[in-house]
């Protein structure tokens, strides 16, 4: 049962990702990214990460894709201005090396014993367990993350303001 769920959800995420990088229209690519993200959210539920699965749907599936679609519509790039996609020699060599690296990384994993299910206790990955971990053990990193987000907001505001004529 879990195996079927894993293969179906993993298939969704991989096929969605493949379609993202092969679409010409950016809006279609964003839609396939949503499919990929929803498959991953299902995998997170399978891994008992309930809160992360929810955040994957809310944060990735909603917020980030809405930002992308909004920007695509703001830019409103005409069809003839979309760049001609042709595979250059350098890109081809890069893809070959990426595939080789993947094979090298995957060989031990594919040969090894896949391992059994996790030995997690009841309530692992629930919101309260995650909150306990954040606020008891990783509080400083959480604060640092807040600073990072504030800096990003200030950066976006500074970048996108109109230049004032002197």
């Amino acid at each position, binding site marked *: 049962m879990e195996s079927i769920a894993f293969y179906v959800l993993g298939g969704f995420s991989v096929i969605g990702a493949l379609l993202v990088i092969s679409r010409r229209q950016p809006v279609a690519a964003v839609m396939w990214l949503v499919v990929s993200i929803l498959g991953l959210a299902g995998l997170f539920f399978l891994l008992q990460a309930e809160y992360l699965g929810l955040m994957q749907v809310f944060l990735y599936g909603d917020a980030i894709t809405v930002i*992308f679609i909004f920007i695509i519509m703001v830019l409103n790039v005409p069809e003839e201005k979309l760049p001609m996609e042709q595979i250059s020699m350098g890109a081809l060599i890069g893809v070959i090396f990426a*595939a080789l690296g993947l094979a090298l990384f995957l060989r031990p994993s594919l040969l090894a014993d896949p*391992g059994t299910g996790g030995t997690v206790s009841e309530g692992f990955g629930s919101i309260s367990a995650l909150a306990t971990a954040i606020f008891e053990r990783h509080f400083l990193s959480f604060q640092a993350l807040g600073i990072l987000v504030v800096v990003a907001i200030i950066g976006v505001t500074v970048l996108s303001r109109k230049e004032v004529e002197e």
Partner: protein
Amino acid sequence: MEPGISHFLVLSSLLFVIGLVGVMVRRNVLIVLLSIEIMLNGAILASVSFAYFQAMMGAQVFALFLMALAAAEAGLALAILVLVYRKQGVVSADDIQLLKQ
């Protein structure tokens, strides 16, 4: 048979490499940014699967931080893209070469 940790790691590295190929091959900057999101998704999946199979809550906290990082990155990158499109009127990664000159 239940899926073990290597199943999840294989899936996460597949996603990472698909995103990497997208970054290298595509010229439309919007699609390059989407490919970066796919790469980050692969990294998050690896972190979450380690959290489950090693029973470590810290790895899930790290995955949550990665999601916030991805949101900040998407916002900043898209702001820069809007600025570049306003100034130069191109979305092709090959035509954006102001820094080269």
